[in-house]
């Protein structure tokens, strides 16, 4: 069990949970994730470790209430409550090193998983250019945290309510077209965004990494629910990834596979009448 130490509302339907998980905090590295199960009736869902404090033994999880389990977590779990299962760290840590100039691209709550990786790039002496984007200014998260570890921060919103109007790919394309030397691009966010980032950098031959958000069950390589085609080969995102060469990923298949439970997800999860959402 992992106790919720703090809960904060970052944006509409987006919450930051700091949870007590010393075993995970002790071992995790940027790019890794956990699988959580909120209670006995819950499904298992993957969440990226957005930050960690080894000394305090806690990790930070950013959750957007988009489906039954995330809504259940965001609406009914508060400080002091226990999340029944938190397992990790899972997946490969991000590849670290001094690459030169790194552009990190975070879309929506994808900014959260980008953060620890960008921070590590920064600490290793890379020049970090961060592009963060959201549909609207209210949905922008962690701008200050990102600014603190970036040499340059560019904010975009689809509707122009903050930063520049447009998509994260716009400033990226401009930089590439201007001939700026970029050694690595990391993109995390909605699949469509990662796909577009990959398409933007491909003609320029700039190495681009995406962290794939597939459907997962166990997160330890035993089921293949998270399988993706990378370079024509089947890979399990939970153990072979979650980061892959974005130019090799079959994004169309990834989008399609994410739709697998659309009908069931539309059904209200009734949590058996035993959970605390009924009591409250």
């Amino acid at each position, binding site marked *: 069990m992992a106790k919720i130490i703090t809960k904060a509302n970052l944006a509409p339907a987006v919450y930051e949970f700091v949870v007590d998980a010393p*075993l995970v905090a002790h071992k995790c590295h940027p790019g890794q994730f956990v699988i959580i199960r909120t209670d006995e009736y819950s499904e298992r869902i993957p969440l990226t470790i957005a930050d960690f404090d080894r000394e305090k033994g806690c990790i930070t999880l950013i959750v957007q209430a988009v489906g039954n389990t995330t809504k259940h977590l965001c609406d009914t779990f508060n400080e002091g409550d226990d999340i029944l299962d938190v397992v*990790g760290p899972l997946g490969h840590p991000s590849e670290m090193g001094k690459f030169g100039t790194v552009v990190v691209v975070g879309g929506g709550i994808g900014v959260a998983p980008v953060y620890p990786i960008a921070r590590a790039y920064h600490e290793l002496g890379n020049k970090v250019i961060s592009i963060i984007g959201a549909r609207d200014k209210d949905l922008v998260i962690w701008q200050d945290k990102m600014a603190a570890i970036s040499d340059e921060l560019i904010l975009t919103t689809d509707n122009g309510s903050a930063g520049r109007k447009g998509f994260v790919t716009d400033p990226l394309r401009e930089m590439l077209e201007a001939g700026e030397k970029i050694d690595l691009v990391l993109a995390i966010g909605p699949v469509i965004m990662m796909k577009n980032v990959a398409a933007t950098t491909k003609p320029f031959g700039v190495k681009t990494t995406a962290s794939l958000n597939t459907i997962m069950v166990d997160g330890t390589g035993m089921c293949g629910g998270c399988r993706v085609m990378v370079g024509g080969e089947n890979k399990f995102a939970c153990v072979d990834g979650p980061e892959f060469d974005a130019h090799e990923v079959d994004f169309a298949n990834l989008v399609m596979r994410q739709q697998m439970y659309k009908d069931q997800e539309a059904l209200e999860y009734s949590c058996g009448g035993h959970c605390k959402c009924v009591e409250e």
Partner: protein
Amino acid sequence: MRGGMRNAMPEQPADVRNKNFQEVALGYTKEMAVDEAQRCLNCPKPRCVGSCPVNIDIPKFIHEVAQENFAEAYKILKQKSTLPAVCGRVCPQENQCEGKCVLGIKGEPVAIGRLERFVADYAREHGLDNDVEAPAERKGKKVAVVGSGPSGLTCAGDLAKMGYDVTMYEALHAAGGVLMYGIPQFRLPKEIVQHEISALKKLGVKIVVDAVIGRTFTIKELMEEEGFSAVYVGTGAGLPHFMQIDGENLNGVYSANEFLTRVNLMKAYEFPNYATPVYVGKKAAIVGAGNVAMDAARTAKRLGAEQVYIVYRRSEEEMPARKEEIGHAKEEGIELRLLNNPVAILGDEKGWVNGLKCIKMELGEADASGRRSPVAIAGSEYVLDVDMVVMAIGQGPNPLIKQTTPDLEVNKRGNIVADEAGATSIPGVFAGGDIVTGAATVISAMGAGKKAAAAIDEYLSK
């Protein structure tokens, strides 16, 4: 002693049980059990005992059943077996204890598995299993058991009885391994698995769930930082194989591991009461013919698939599943498509399965292992009309421990190399069960756990 035929096992009728997840086999009544026990000849040199991988004193416990001394019978079982209620249900007794019973030569062997199950169930229902014998002496040494499937549970149980301080680590949120995520509720109720595991806790075994060895701790850390004097690795064969044919990433294609984990461990059969969803088509093809394939097929049927096919490239004779399970599947309306090999999975424009392209096979010459190899019949391709495919063609070892324990020797298939007693290339690290042998049976994994416990005791007593 009475006649040559064993007492039949009461079962739910096929057309009732294929719509529910309750246990198919209902178990002997007390009268049936006592009557069946009286068939045992109590051989002076029993052949059954030697062919039980954990060497239960079979004639002795059966003798106690015949005398209606169920508590005594249970004690005898528990001396050698950690999980009698499980083994009585899922062991392939026909190849083990019952296969060697002398009564089987002219008639039917004593129903040893059914009697084992009866005794364990009776003990649980009557609270006879509450008195757990605490180990006589404490050894003052810590042993870590990695993986809480049948081999880990057995190894942990035996070590705890010897007085070791045992901690078992499990990656999933519930202990039991394949007993929890793989074998369906209708063959092995999960409450029974958890009840048998709870007996280990009474022996003092600590169970740490949500701990992935290789990630949360490495084996080296367990030994150097966490103070364990020995480690037993029983992580099983949990890596699903796919066929590497076109269309395997379409929606509606599952590995059997995923399909069964969703249904068994996550209770997707009670969705939306439980939050984990599962997709089930109207017409499902299960590729493979082992016990896992039978479990997947019977599960799909129970979840409402109207037509369920087992697609297998060899003939019925070569099917690796237990005869009893094949029989159960057929009774429940599962159709066998034998001598059929999938060559591609077809999909619609939205990315969902809408057919399985198969080629017909014939059996050729026997290979080195004596099995006749299937050979494709040119031009015989056709499309089987299905909207769901489950791949149940086997599992390999999970590579995580190997990746994080580089000096642990593995063979070319990725299985850990261990000697007969379970010793690996690293002193103090032992291994057993499917991670060593490749996918096998529950009872052989238990046998390996038992042998390794003895070897660990010897190693730590030096």
